[in-house]
């Protein structure tokens, strides 16, 4: 089942509204950041604008967080996803989060690839590590 950009945006908007009713803890804050950045990125795609360097680095961090949240969800609640196929209408919270996080991870990966190729040359992990090896050490 193919999910269109409109499907993904609608799901992200609805999920954000729902998640905003949750008690605010670290996981909720991370999920809200992921949803906010995904919504902004879907809208950017709709506007057909390019990604800028600042947005690239923010999305890269958010992509990492979304990947970790998805990994944790599968590890902790994978048994609840038996029988659910990505793209189908979710009927539980776990299925909804699985669907929306998959959307986000795919979206961020595509945007990072697109942004990297078009406007600037972002740092790779190895390059960032190399330049940070020269940086003064953070104090406690």
């Amino acid at each position, binding site marked *: 089942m193919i999910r269109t950009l409109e499907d993904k945006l609608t799901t992200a908007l609805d999920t954000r509204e729902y998640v905003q009713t949750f008690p605010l803890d670290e996981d909720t804050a991370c999920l809200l950041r992921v949803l906010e950045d995904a919504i902004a990125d879907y809208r950017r795609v709709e506007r057909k604008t390019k990604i800028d360097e600042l947005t690239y680095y923010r999305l890269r961090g958010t992509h990492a967080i979304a990947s970790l949240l998805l*990994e944790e969800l*599968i590890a902790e609640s994978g048994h609840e996803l038996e029988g659910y196929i990505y793209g189908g209408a979710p009927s539980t919270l776990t299925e909804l989060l699985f669907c929306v996080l998959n959307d986000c991870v795919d979206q961020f990966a595509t945007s990072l690839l697109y942004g990297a190729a078009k406007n600037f040359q972002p740092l790779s992990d190895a390059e960032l590590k190399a*330049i940070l*090896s*020269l*940086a003064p050490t953070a104090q406690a």
Partner: protein
Amino acid sequence: MSAPKESVRVSVEWLALTASLTTSQLVAAGEIWRDLAARFPEIASGLLGGLAHDEIARGLRWDRRSLNKVLKTYVDWLRDYEILLPKGLGRTKKKKLKETSP
């Protein structure tokens, strides 16, 4: 569908490296790195390969002081942007090494 393990591993490394940096600092770090890589490609290559500064100096046939002078420019540049090495990454103090040596 699950996220590929490799991408998660890389993501975790990226998060750890950038934990104490803002996006503006990352942009600045990119500019500083590109300057270093353009002016001193051998040094950049040595740093990428994880070589110690002594090894890089030997490879360039420079004395350590000359290398330090070049690197200090970049250290100061990083400091101007308050870009700091996250604690616990990359460096082991010589003193600690001595303490743990048999």
